[in-house]
């Protein structure tokens, strides 16, 4: 598909395409949802995430595990009365990663709109 005739315009050669900077850990619909909710809620309970993201407990646990391993969220287990509760909090790294992902998505949209307008 590409060849000498398809050389990108000069402005695209100067800065890398926003897609190249997307973090696979964050750029995933469910994990992006977890980070967004945790950012907005300050602290979010496992059950709330499960309901809002419409996931099974096992699937949600896997995604939280990936985010925890990457140091983007902190998981805290406790009790509310006799019921066990798991709370998820965004770390500083998670906050930064979310901000970067949102910025890259916005940049990507701008690029696509600019390209389709040409």
């Amino acid at each position: 598909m590409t060849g000498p005739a398809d050389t990108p315009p000069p402005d695209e050669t100067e800065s890398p395409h926003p897609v190249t900077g997307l973090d696979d850990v964050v750029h995933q619909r469910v994990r992006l949802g977890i980070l967004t909710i945790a950012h907005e809620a300050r602290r979010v309970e496992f059950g709330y995430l499960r309901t809002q993201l419409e996931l099974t407990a096992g699937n949600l646990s896997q995604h939280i595990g990936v985010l925890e391993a990457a140091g983007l969220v902190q998981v805290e287990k406790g009790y509310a009365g006799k019921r066990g509760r798991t709370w998820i909090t965004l770390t500083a790294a998670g906050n930064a990663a979310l901000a970067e992902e949102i910025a890259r998505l916005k940049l990507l949209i701008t690029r696509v709109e600019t390209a389709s307008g040409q």
Partner: protein
Amino acid sequence: MTTDSVPASGDPRRLLAEARDLARRVRLAQRVTWLPLLVLALVTFGAIPVYRFGHRVVSDCHVVADGQVCKVEFQAVGFYWLVAMVVAYVVIAGGYLRVARTRGVGARVWPYVLTGVALVVLFSAVPPAWIFRDPTVYTNHPSAFSLFLTRLLNPAGLIGLALLVLAWLERHVALLLYTLGYLAAVLVPINFGWGAGWGGRWGDAPPLVISGGLLLLGSAGFALAQRLRRSR
């Protein structure tokens, strides 16, 4: 319920829209707007008997063209507002935390509570009489600006200022519009002349009834809106 995740990548526009929607739903879950309005309405109504029956110290009387003007200190009133408002904000903070925890999210009420308490404590320590060093502000016809500032620094005005912070924290446009209306009613003031002839010890009741009534109506309105939204 899905058992597996959706593909890793997606339309960025859709991803952003979903993120915004999730954030909006969290903010809705965190809102307990009726609570501060109800608590502050009760505090405002509670001030009426304190103004009516509280001890007043009258001093520095001057004779003016159409009578005399005296300096009146409401010691009990100042104490009431300070204590009642601090207690009110503690109750509001506790209520927000409790509701947020029940709904599975964290609360974002602290900046509102701290602003409210700081404003009350600050303007209890620095009453308008210190700001307006010129006593003619009280004895002659005060300027519109002086009246505006005096009303703004009254407890009813301070309640409105703190509510602006809450509207911003919750990104709550309806609360912002409500607060602007409330502030207009308190600062202009909008009373349709009601209570203008009430002199003596009941003279402070009409503005308190109006501001307390507005807060109570607002509380009922936001509670109803929340109930309707949850039942959908």
